[in-house]
């Protein structure tokens, strides 16, 4: 399509979205991959993660909830006969945990790169090959033009590239069409759309993270000083009692003498340490 005449004609280009118009997400192109979190799906232009392209996830620190946010994505993309690539993750993705969450281990590919240059090269190769559904990378200091290359490669290979970067990068411009920011607030993990195509960013959205830890915490015993405290199932985030040092020291003394319950491991129920113990 060629543009003639006044600059206003430029605005008629179908790829140009004007902030005054209804957001593109109102037209709901439902070809995205559901994030598993309804408020976030609403805020994203594709109704979920884009199927191809580059996205950035900005985290205050690693392990702040990004893994749980990505699990539904990993689970769905694992169904494709393509690689799920991890490049230089901060720690090892723990295979038994992934398998329990239904992530296809046989499609997982773990890469270690010593230099940032190698990481970006590997990411570009993976994205452009068409053989990877998701490529997650933890780069140190990528340049905007390198990110632009990744975006082009991702479109070519119909892959989703995900860059995990520190929150400090939110102030820097980035050619990635989608940027999300994670934060931990008092109420739990929250996510915000910093930038997306065809829409404004969003406010902070609370993620009801279906963490195994959160669910199991309810029914299980929590080690407290004197007694086993059982929390009801429906309590989503009970604030567990803070242990005092003496209590834990006591528990640890007692532990070796407890018997193993074959079904559930250790069931701790303690009585105050008396002279007999």
């Amino acid at each position, binding site marked *: 399509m060629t543009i003639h005449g006044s600059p206003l004609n430029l605005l008629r280009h179908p790829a140009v979205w004007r902030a005054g118009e209804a957001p593109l997400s109102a037209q709901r192109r439902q070809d995205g991959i559901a994030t598993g979190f309804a408020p976030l799906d609403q805020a994203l232009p594709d109704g979920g993660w884009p199927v191809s392209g580059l996205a950035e996830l900005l985290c205050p620190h690693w392990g702040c909830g990004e893994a749980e946010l990505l699990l539904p994505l990993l689970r769905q993309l694992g169904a494709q006969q393509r690689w799920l690539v991890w490049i230089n993750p901060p720690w*090892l993705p723990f295979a038994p*945990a992934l398998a329990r969450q239904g992530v296809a281990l046989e499609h997982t590919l773990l890469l270690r790169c010593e230099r940032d240059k190698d990481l970006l090269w590997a990411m570009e190769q993976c994205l452009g090959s068409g053989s990877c559904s998701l490529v997650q990378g933890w780069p140190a200091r990528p340049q905007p033009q390198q990110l632009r290359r990744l975006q082009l490669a991702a479109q070519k290979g119909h892959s989703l590239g995900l860059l995990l970067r520190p929150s400090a990068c939110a102030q820097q411009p980035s050619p990635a069409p989608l940027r999300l920011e994670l934060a931990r607030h008092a109420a739990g993990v929250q996510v915000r759309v910093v930038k997306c195509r065809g829409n404004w960013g969003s406010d902070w959205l609370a993620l009801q993270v279906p963490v195994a830890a959160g669910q199991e915490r309810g029914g299980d015993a929590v080690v407290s000083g004197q007694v086993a405290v059982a929390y009801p199932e429906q309590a989503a985030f009970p604030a567990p009692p803070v242990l005092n040092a003496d209590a834990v020291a006591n528990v640890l003394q007692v532990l070796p003498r407890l018997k193993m319950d074959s079904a559930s491991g250790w069931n701790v129920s303690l009585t105050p340490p008396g002279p007999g113990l």
Partner: protein
Amino acid sequence: MLWACLHFPALALNRVEQTLPAPRALVIEITRRQRRLVWQANAQARAVGIAPGMTIPSAQGLCRDLLCVPRNETAEQDTLQELGNWAYQFTPHIQLPSSLTQNSQLQDGNSLLLEVGHSLRLFHSKENLARQLLEKIPAGFQPCHLAFCDTAFAALLLARAQDGATLDSAAPKTNAPPFYSLHDLPAQSVRWLQLADDKIALLESMGIVTLEQLFALPHDALAKRFGPDFMLYLRRLTGAVPDILPSWQLPDQFRATLEFLHELDTTDQLLFPLRNLLTRLQHYLQARQLATTELHFILTLRNRTLQHWPLGLAAPHYRSEHMLPLLQLKLAQLQLQAPVLALQLAVNRFVELPRGQQDLLTPWQSDNVSRQQLVDKLKARLGDTNVCGLGMVADHRPEKSWAACAPGTGKILADPASGKMQPQSQEQRPFWLLPTPQKLRDKKGLPLHEGELQLLKGPERIDTGWWDDQPVNRDYFVARQPGGRLLWIYRDRVDQQWYLHGIFGE
């Protein structure tokens, strides 16, 4: 039968030019009566006035940096053999003229005879076949003359008759279709028969100039004067005696060598010859419908020692454009022990050609082959150990319950000892695992990590591994950091220390 003859008049030049990084004046020399003579000269040499038959000193007088290479007939035969491997895609009936005739004039070994009558159905028409033949001739084998005729000898002679036309580049190239029939033969001169000079002289003294006159003579009389060999030659030329259908034997193993005229001392210079060798390998593999996973390069060094450079591929490959990028990456890591004089590629092991399937409905085209190609490429640059898949092992020790495995193999749940599937622990496991547990400080027995940790759940005791001398005896807890992050920590029951072993993703 329909025979096609591919004639490569400058085969000896082509063979040497393949090893030259840039075109330059080149002659092939032969020694006659203790004089070194120019036998063939390439276009650059002819441009400065060097002509076949000149002595080497006078040719060197015309061109200062003239490259003179002695003729190597064995190597030319090998080159022709490889061209035969390439031509195998058109027909299995390929013949070298040297096996066809005793006529020494036809034996200089730069023609290939293909019986294509049986392949016409595949290629629909002679014209289409001729076009494809000329289009697919490997790069660097120019000029090439093509002629079609009903008998092998006629095709051979007709292709060779075009010789004079294009070796002298001044003569315009004729665009006549290369299809001839036996009816065209009588018009030819007897010189065209490429007989020994005394026989030509004898024929001409008899007043016989064209083949028409020769064919008109009674056979008995001719046989008496020229011998039975000559008669057999004539009868096979005219189709009176049918040609024997040859069958081409592809060698069992691939071996190709490039000898350089100059020493190569950097790996970058090897790229050009590598591409050449891989193209030849591709022709061979396509002809045999095979692929390979192992390439073995042997570099002949200056001091005549051999440097071996074996390369393994993760998946079978047969196309040079797939193998070349991998080699390029590997080439950067190759350490040359001394300048290289020759490069040989040997491939001894082959596998069946993988048959890929493609999905019509998905926008990406990813099959097993392309996925393995990606792994190959990544391994070539990052190193074998830095590319792995994740697998599980039936072991209760967290650090041993996962394993790096070959990409794509994934889930291994079998117990290494019994081979039986074991249920993994149903306890909660963190998303991230620290490769080695990190020791934590403690305050009055309570663990510290960026603040006091709050124990939420536990302990889960893991006391196992006594059988392989790496026992663990630990109580695992889920703990919460002041920032809200959930950690997987344990207290080692042997040294009574706290360790951080995992991080939950929340």
